[in-house]
């Protein structure tokens, strides 16, 4: 297997008595958009959580840009350049939209640049600009999702992981979100994407992994997976 900026080897991970990942190895190459697909409960979110340090791995190795990040706590993982936009929005409910965005830039210095990034996000999602002062917990589901995506972008990572970013977004906003994701990949940021909208994900990715029951069962270029009989039946509804 070719080595990537992010290399994961034989990672095992779980919660209490439950083993969610049973030895996963994957490589994300610099500047690529890599998709991770799989059924409910397959372990996609757990994979992302393990990378960002939310769930400590029980075995295995993780390296980012050659540096070992196995077992590192989330702030260190973020500081090393990996951002994670978590599943289920997870906005800070009692903070305003603007404060939520500022939290995304918590580790950054230089208020001028941060403000410029914030304005860029407002331009992408005008709805957020309208609601700068609203408590994030009172936003609609889709508005919260936009905020979560914007917040993750605020940290200017070298690798960004999205967990179901299109969840709850209106079709036109989904399109825009995917355009943004392609855009940041094109600008050189590496992307690891978990999506239930498997068709869209496979279409735009450079490489994809299929996860079942905590194991990677298939990997290849997006177009290859789209053609795969098993994938078509189980994930693309056709």
């Amino acid at each position: 297997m070719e080595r990537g900026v992010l290399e994961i080897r034989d990672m095992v991970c779980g919660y209490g008595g439950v083993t969610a990942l049973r030895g996963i190895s994957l490589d994300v190459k610099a500047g690529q958009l890599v998709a991770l697909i799989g059924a409910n409960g397959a372990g996609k979110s757990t994979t992302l959580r393990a990378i960002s340090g939310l769930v400590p791995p029980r075995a295995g190795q993780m390296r980012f840009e050659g540096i070992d990040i196995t077992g590192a706590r989330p702030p260190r993982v973020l500081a090393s350049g990996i951002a994670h936009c978590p599943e289920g929005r997870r906005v800070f409910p009692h903070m305003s939209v603007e404060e939520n965005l500022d939290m995304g830039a918590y580790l950054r210095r230089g208020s001028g640049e941060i403000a410029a990034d914030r304005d860029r996000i407002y331009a992408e999602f005008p709805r957020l600009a309208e609601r700068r002062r609203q408590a994030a917990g009172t936003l609609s589901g889709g508005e919260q999702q936009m905020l979560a995506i914007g917040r993750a972008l605020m940290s200017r990572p070298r690798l960004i992981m999205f967990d179901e970013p299109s969840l709850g977004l209106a079709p036109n906003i989904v399109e825009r979100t995917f355009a943004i994701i392609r855009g940041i990949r094109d600008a050189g940021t590496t992307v690891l994407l978990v999506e239930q909208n498997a068709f869209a994900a496979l279409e735009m990715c450079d490489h994809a992994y299929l996860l079942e029951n905590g194991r990677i069962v298939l990997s290849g270029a997006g177009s290859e997976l789209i053609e795969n009989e098993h994938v078509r039946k189980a994930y693309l509804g056709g």
Partner: protein
Amino acid sequence: MSEFLQHLVNMLVLGGTYALLGIGLTLIFGIMNVVNFTHGVLYTFGAYIMFIVVQQLGLNFFLALPVAVLAGWLLGAAIELTLLRPLRGSDIDTTMLVMIGAWIAMQSGTLWIWGGVAKSVATPFPEAPLVLGPVSVSWLRLFVLAAAAMLILVTYFLINKTSLGRAMRATFQDHDTASLMGVNVDMIYTSTFAIGSSLAAAAGALLGPVYVIFPQMGDLAAVKAFAIVILGGLGNITGAVIGGFILALAEELGAGYVSSGYRDAMGFVIIIAVLIFRPTGLFARAERVG
């Protein structure tokens, strides 16, 4: 009329006191979500530090204040590290009970070390009060009011306007996500508890000389602090300040014009009434369903 004016002035100085009691707890209870039964002990602790520094070591009164604040900070940090950190993620009632245990043990420790006899602290302020027409007020209490106002402003600024304050609020709303934002949540837990504790100690250090210092002095203070924090809405510093003044007003007028036997009842009746009309305190946070 002059009696009423005097009651109003009393309300003002008492309200400042209550606001000061409230803000430390609003950090720990309102923001951190820890039912902090040690708040009263930390208050007592601040007062005893004042006593030690001024009476036993013979040092300056104004020097003693920052010493008490620092001591409160350290004790708070120690409590967080030893008692709360190992139980992180446990249910709120479990941490509450641990704090009850700490409260009982620490209060008895105070009794053991210093005995039950009340102590008092000499202050550099003149004993003769400031007299303005029909009302009088002691200089010491004016000083306490001013110091309280300053502490409240600093806390308000810290929580609402700084990046540390933002990280604190974020951490206690969703600590996993906060850590994904790069927040060192362990540090935030410890420092929030320590800051809240140092405010409690500051309140004790300021009020110890106004009143007298004894091991159970914190109990009543803590109950009032809880009431104030909830009256103003959890985690809301402005709310806690206003809550403090409302409680003071209720007590002062209750004792002055209803019956002194029901002085404390007035405060509690107000709390029940307010919560019936505004079930989440005077300054509720916006919530939504669905």
